[in-house]
Each structure stands twice: as C-alpha cells, then as structure tokens.
C-alpha cells in the first residue's frame, strides 16, 4: 500500500473546520462587521440576524428553544458557568454536587473550586465499561443535592452515558441535571426534553466549527437560574457579558445545522470504519483490548490497549498517524491516564493504550493504511518486548516481584 503522510486520527482533540462552515463565517469577518448588540442601525441588525439564526440551529439539534441557548467561548467556559453559576445562585439552599471521576478536568476542577467554598462533592465511580451505575447515583442523592453533572460522550474512551435515565432520576428528585456534551453533539441524538436535561455544554471545535466558541443550554421551563461569572453589559440575557463574535457564532450554528441533516449518514460511515479497523487489528494481533463499553460508544473513537507494547514507543513507530496516547509518558507526569485507572485498567495495560479518533474527513484508504501500519509496528515492538517473550513462555507477569521505581 502506498505510504501516506501525516494522517489525522485525533478527532476527539479537535476537528478541522468544515469548508461549508468556514464559507458561512467569512462575510462576518468582512462586510458584516456590526456589533450584534447595537440596536439602532442596520449594521447591528445584520450581525444580530446571523447570530440569531445560529442560535436557532444550535437549539434545534438538541430540541431546545433558541432563548435557552447562550454563546460562550467553548465547553470549558460552559462547564464552569453551569456548575459555578448554579451553585452560586442556589448555594444557600442546597450544597451537594454529584459528578463522576472520569469527567473532563474542567468539570472536576470546577467542583474542586466549589468544594473549597463549602460545597459537598460526590465523585461517582465508573464500572469497568466506563459507565456510571444508576444505583450508585440514586444512593448518592441527599436532600441537599443541588446538581448532577455527567458528561454525554467521553472524550478519551468514547462511551455514552445513559442520559435519559440520569435525567429521569434527577427530575424525580428535583435536582438539576447538567451534561457536558462537547463530544456528544452530532454523535448521538440529543433531546433536552426527553432526557430531562437542565443545562448542557456545547463546544464548537469538536464538531467542525472553529476553536473559541461554544454554547450553554439553560432550561427555561422549569426555570434554571445561574449567577453570571463575567460582569459587563449584560449580553446573553445577563448570563454572559461581552460582545459576541458573530463569525464564531455563525460557525457553531452552521456546524450544528450540518449535523442535524447528516448525523445518521456520518455515523453509518464511521461505524463501518470502526469495524474495519478493529477487526483488522484483532485479526492480526492477539491481546489487544478495547477500553470502555463496546456497545455504548460512539463509532469515531477507538481507545485500545496493545498489551506488552508501551504506548509512546508505539506512537513513535506510527509517527505518520496523529493519534493520542492513553498513557501519559508524553507529558511530564509519566502517570497513566486517570480515566483508564478509574475503569480499573491495570497500570501496565494503561501504559500500552492509544486513542485513535476518526471523523468526517477520514477516508477508507486512510483506515486501511493505518490498520496495516499499526499491526506491523505492534508486531515489531512485541519482538522487542521482554514482557511479550515471557507471556509466550507462559510466565505470569503479575507474579514477578518487580522493583518499582
């Protein structure tokens, strides 16, 4: 097979801007330059029109009302605003937050911040498939529980949490349900009414819109109130001051609009790719494990542990494929991923993990090429691996007394 150069397999880190999205944005960098908050002239109205159409597109993909959408700089800001905003507004009545150990750092850090301000935080564990237990959730609820924050689709392992069931539990206990859906928009059907979602964080750059824009859905009926984090001119219904960037808002809106029409088709293609790659690797390499539920997951994410082959050396060997390391030897910490640890993946296996992410612009040819390259390199590195040798000789590696350093 012809050698391909630099193929992008990191769609969970970010996505390229769809050319259709960029095309819609371009006028807002040029001739439509008005301030969307200027109410007295056509320059403002024109910019505002773009923003409001975008807001409708964002609302539509999650079955919300456009008035329930506010634009932000991204999912990190949305998650901060949802958790801190709700907690600050209602904190004198209820002070307990429930989240999960595998949430994104911005949720965990926001909770840690709130814990410092006197809130109680429960971090639910996950099962070995990466999903929370609904019984554990029910058991954690107290009469002080204010909000539950559980993400829709996981950034590292791609698993889909049971949002509808979580929403039901929250609604029947009169608790707000916030979900970080940065990785879920366009990947799974979302319906804020059916799922009883009260707040939802949305990111632009995970769905082929630019970096620097996101949104927060905030339910109006029954009404959820938040304290704003930014003081200013009271834009976005007073919840997020600062002049909007019409170009970025339009980009996010168009990205949602495309997904509203194309999600099913795209998912079918990605499912085909996922199966091709997974079967291709498993056929040629034993002892490869998929991290996270095999059923409840989005098709564009394969988080795999290649036993006996250290993840960073594998990444070096497949350097033309831009993947992400599940082990973190590439960062300064040398600690394996906290997410895989939470799943109960043993440390030695966590060190062998890669996240392979594909999406809208991945081709079948790239999938085939990547599968071949990965298989070849795993085989080469296993020939170099003393652990593989021991495993083939029938030595139980877990029984050896290793000198930890």
């Amino acid at each position: 097979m012809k050698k391909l150069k630099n193929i992008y397999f990191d769609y969970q880190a970010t996505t390229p801007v769809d050319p259709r999205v960029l095309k819609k944005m371009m006028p807002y960098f040029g001739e439509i330059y008005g301030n969307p908050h200027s109410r007295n002239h056509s320059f403002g109205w024109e910019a505002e029109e773009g923003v409001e159409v975008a807001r409708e597109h964002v609302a539509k993909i999650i079955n919300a009302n456009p008035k329930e959408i506010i634009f932000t700089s991204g999912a990190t800001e949305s998650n901060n605003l949802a958790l801190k905003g709700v907690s600050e507004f209602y904190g004198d009545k209820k002070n307990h937050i429930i989240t999960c150990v595998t949430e994104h750092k911005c949720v965990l850090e926001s909770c840690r911040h709130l814990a410092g301000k006197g809130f109680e935080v429960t971090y639910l564990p996950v099962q070995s498939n990466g999903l929370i237990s609904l019984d554990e959730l029910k058991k954690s609820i107290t009469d002080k529980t204010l909000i539950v924050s559980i993400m829709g689709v996981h950034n590292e392992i791609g698993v889909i949490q049971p949002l509808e069931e979580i929403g039901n539990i929250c609604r029947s206990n009169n608790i707000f349900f916030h979900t970080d859906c940065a990785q879920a928009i366009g990947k799974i059907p979302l319906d804020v009414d059916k799922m009883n979602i009260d707040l939802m964080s949305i990111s632009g750059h995970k769905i082929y819109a630019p970096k620097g824009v996101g949104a927060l859905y905030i339910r109006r009926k029954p009404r959820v109130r938040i304290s704003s984090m930014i003081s200013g001119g009271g834009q976005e219904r007073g919840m997020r001051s600062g002049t909007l960037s019409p170009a970025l808002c339009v980009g996010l809106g168009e990205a949602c609009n495309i997904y509203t029409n194309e999600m099913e088709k795209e998912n079918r293609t990605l499912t085909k790719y996922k199966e091709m790659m997974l079967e291709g690797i498993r056929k040629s390499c034993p002892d490869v494990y998929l991290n996270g539920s095999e059923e409840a997951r989005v098709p564009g994410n394969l988080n795999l542990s290649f036993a006996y082959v250290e993840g960073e050396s594998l990444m070096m060997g497949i350097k033309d494929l831009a993947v992400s390391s599940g082990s973190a030897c590439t960062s300064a910490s040398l600690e394996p991923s906290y997410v895989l640890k939470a799943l109960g993946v043993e440390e030695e296996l966590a060190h062998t993990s890669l996240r392979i992410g594909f999406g809208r612009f991945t081709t079948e040819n790239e999938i085939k090429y990547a599968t071949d390259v990965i298989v070849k390199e795993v085989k080469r590195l296993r020939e170099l691996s003393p652990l593989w040798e021991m495993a083939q000789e029938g030595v139980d590696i877990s029984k050896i007394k290793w000198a930890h350093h």
Partner: protein
Amino acid sequence: MAYSKELLDHYENPKNVGSMDKESEQVGTGLVGAPACGDVMKLQIKVNNKGVIEDAKFKTFGCGSAIASSSLITEWVKGKNLDEAHSIKNTEIANHLALPPVKIHCSILAEDAIKAAIDDYKKKNRKNT
C-alpha cells in the same frame, strides 16, 4: 518532542535485540523496571573465560528513549571487561542520545540493567568456584 538522530536510529534499527540462554553459566541476565511504571529492560551479557563481554542482547518494553538506551548500552559493553562495563554512567548514555529531561530515567534504567546483568553473572560463577 524532537528526538536526536542517534536516538531515532537506535529506535528504528535497534542493535542486539534478542535473548540468550539464561541458564548458561557464561550468561548474566539483568531484568529491571516494572510493567506498571511503563518500562522493563532485560539485558543479557555473554562473558568469555578472559572476563570480557563478547556478546550482549536486550529486550525492552518502554518508550523510544528506553529502547534506544538499551540498544546503545549493548553496543558499548561488547568487548569491555566487567569492571569497564560496570563503570558506564547513565549520563554518558543520556548525553550521547540527547535525552530530554523527562527521559533521563531511561538511561538510569539502562545503567541499572547492565549492573544487574554483571551481578547475576558474578553470582553464578562465584557459586561454581
């Protein structure tokens, strides 16, 4: 992270990959590191009756720097006597491969591995004399 040419060469074309009979009295084996830490090195030396290392082999589970460090040290110890091999310092490996600071532990592991292999050889041969 940009790696040096020497490092990449040892990673892509590692020297002396393989295993020797660990039961042989001529062979000393060092196994260091731990799977849970992300590195395991197995380094073996074959020593002739003049006390000179005439062959060395390795297998390594670890990052590219760990593989390169073990490949390099097997090249260096060949032809050396045990004392000379024992005196190789991790800093020499780190300098030669231009290891970045977070990868210095890979060179330490390689130094530990050769020392462990020499100790194993000495222990075996002490018993027999």
